[in-house]
């Protein structure tokens, strides 16, 4: 067998083993299952929901879980299961939109300040210090208070605060990658700075940021629900888990299902993202 044949066989074995490794990680697969199902519910809520989530039935107010209404009904007689399912589209949307812009901005800014250092990096450092001093939620609420409540403003607020966490991570990883000679090699080959940053350093530095992104999606759902609960995020009558919990809070002793069911949805989805993040951290870890 020639060298090249040996190499290609080796490559195949490596590739197969990585997929195989993913399949053998139960935590990761459970996470993928939960998020896969959640995504399905989010995209096709009308297929899965037994009722119209906004259909009001005054003859069936605050019904406990039954065969007709597995999650019970709320104070206007709306089917809780249908509302929890419809809320998937809102809350899964949160997981994406509250994080994807922060992720993008953070990765780019982090790579740039990590590469160029200097004054920009010092200013960035002070900015990070200033922002992480405050609890995340407090800052987001402050921004929403300025912009006004609503989903879009909530995304803006979370992005304005959240990108810093991504940028900090990306900066550190970029600096670590620059210790490798291929970065210096890029410079001595006469490549442009942009080429070195975005083609060579960024792909090598981004792995931990992606892992953090997964975890952050869970946090974004939690944060979005919290703001919904406080009346700063999604607005009623829109079905959103935080809003649903808020609607049920006055009846927690008599109609517990109104708040419990969306709460379980939050926990499950959060768990799903965390399991994926954890699994990815293992799978993407570079190996010799």
């Amino acid at each position, binding site marked *: 067998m020639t060298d090249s044949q040996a190499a*290609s066989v080796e490559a195949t074995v490596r590739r197969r083993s990585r997929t195989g490794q993913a399949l053998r990680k139960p935590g990761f697969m459970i996470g993928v299952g939960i998020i896969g199902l959640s995504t399905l519910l989010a995209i096709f809520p009308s297929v899965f929901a037994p009722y119209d989530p906004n259909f009001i039935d005054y003859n069936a107010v605050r019904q406990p879980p039954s065969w007709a209404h597995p999650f019970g009904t709320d104070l206007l007689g709306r089917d809780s299961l249908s509302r929890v399912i419809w809320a998937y589209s809102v809350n899964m949307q949160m997981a994406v939109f509250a994080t994807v812009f922060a992720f993008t901005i953070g990765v780019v800014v982090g790579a740039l300040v990590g590469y160029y250092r200097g004054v920009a990096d010092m200013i960035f450092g002070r900015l990070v210090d200033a922002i992480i001093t405050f609890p995340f939620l407090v800052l987001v609420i402050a921004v929403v208070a300025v912009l006004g409540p609503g989903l879009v403003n909530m995304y803006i607020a979370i992005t304005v605060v959240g990108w810093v966490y991504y940028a900090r991570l990306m900066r550190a990883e970029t600096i670590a990658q620059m210790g*490798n000679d*291929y970065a210096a090699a890029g*410079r001595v*080959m006469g490549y442009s700075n942009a080429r070195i940053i975005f083609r060579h350093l960024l792909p*090598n530095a981004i792995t931990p940021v992606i892992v953090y992104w997964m975890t952050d999606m869970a946090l974004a759902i939690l944060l979005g629900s919290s703001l919904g609960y406080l009346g700063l995020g999604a607005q009623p009558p829109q079905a959103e888990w935080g809003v649903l919990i808020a609607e049920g809070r006055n009846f927690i002793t008599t109609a517990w299902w109104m708040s419990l069911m969306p709460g379980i949805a939050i926990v499950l989805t959060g768990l799903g993202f965390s399991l994926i993040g954890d699994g990815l951290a293992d799978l993407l870890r570079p190996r*010799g």
Partner: protein
Amino acid sequence: MLETILAVKNLSTTFHRGGLDLPAVQDVSFSVGRGEVLGLVGESGSGKSVTLRSILGLARRYGTVTGEVLWQGQDLCSAPERTLRQVRGRDIAMIFQEPMTSLNPLLTVSLQLTETLRAHTTLNRAERKKKAIEMLDLVGIPSAASRLGDYPHQFSGGMRQRVMIAIALAANPKLLLADEPTTALDVTIQAQILDLILDLSKRLDMGVILVTHDLGVVAQTCENVAVMYAGRIVEQGSVRQVLRAPLHPYTVGLMRSVPEDVPPRTSLHSVPGTPPSLESLPRGCAFAPRCQRAESACHTQRPTLTDVSTARRVACFHPFETEKEPAA
């Protein structure tokens, strides 16, 4: 005398850390001719690598670089980044010590090879691929065409260094800066890589500056050599002259440290003391505190690099005799 392609004049590089000035390279001058292999020798921290990086303008981001680096009548030291980017890779290429990290682990060898070609040549896609295969072939990678799609981790250390050389030479540079290219490789591979660099230098008529701390490597490969100590060149000349009759006490010390004709189980000769730290260089000759020939003047005045004979220079008040073989 060979046609000079690179002339370095009074190059100094100073880093600034916490209010301190760290003169990593001071007043270094040398030139490289077409197809010449110049050795730059010295122990760790003597400024060899910084000198190389200063030539390509990689050091000026981190410190102050003064002096002249003349390349085809142009001073690279004062040239704008844009000009330097043209020179880097196309005219002057560089290879590194650590082949394990000098390739991007995420891109195939083919992509990394053609990237250089795209930056510096007008070849089209098919031509670039052809050239890439040609380069891998040139550096002695077996069945080059079939290995284009491979990733760096599929190559061994020596093979990676070959790939690195192929990438560096893809755009036909006239000068190769080799920063300890064999230090991280095992001995048999070292010899192969050195032979390869030598062979390519001859075939492509390319100048090479070979940084190393291995005098054996210098003896094998270089025509001329410059010995550096604490950021300065202390002795310069042809390899034959310098290794046969070293003038500077430091060079003599280095030569005596080479394990040659020593009976087994005897301790090797070593130069007493350690190199001075850059923060507190002695006022006089930097080597004086470790030098057995030093006299009071050596501690207060710095000897300048002066011509002894043609292309033979030494910076010492009390050099060993030129004619006589030094007592070894």
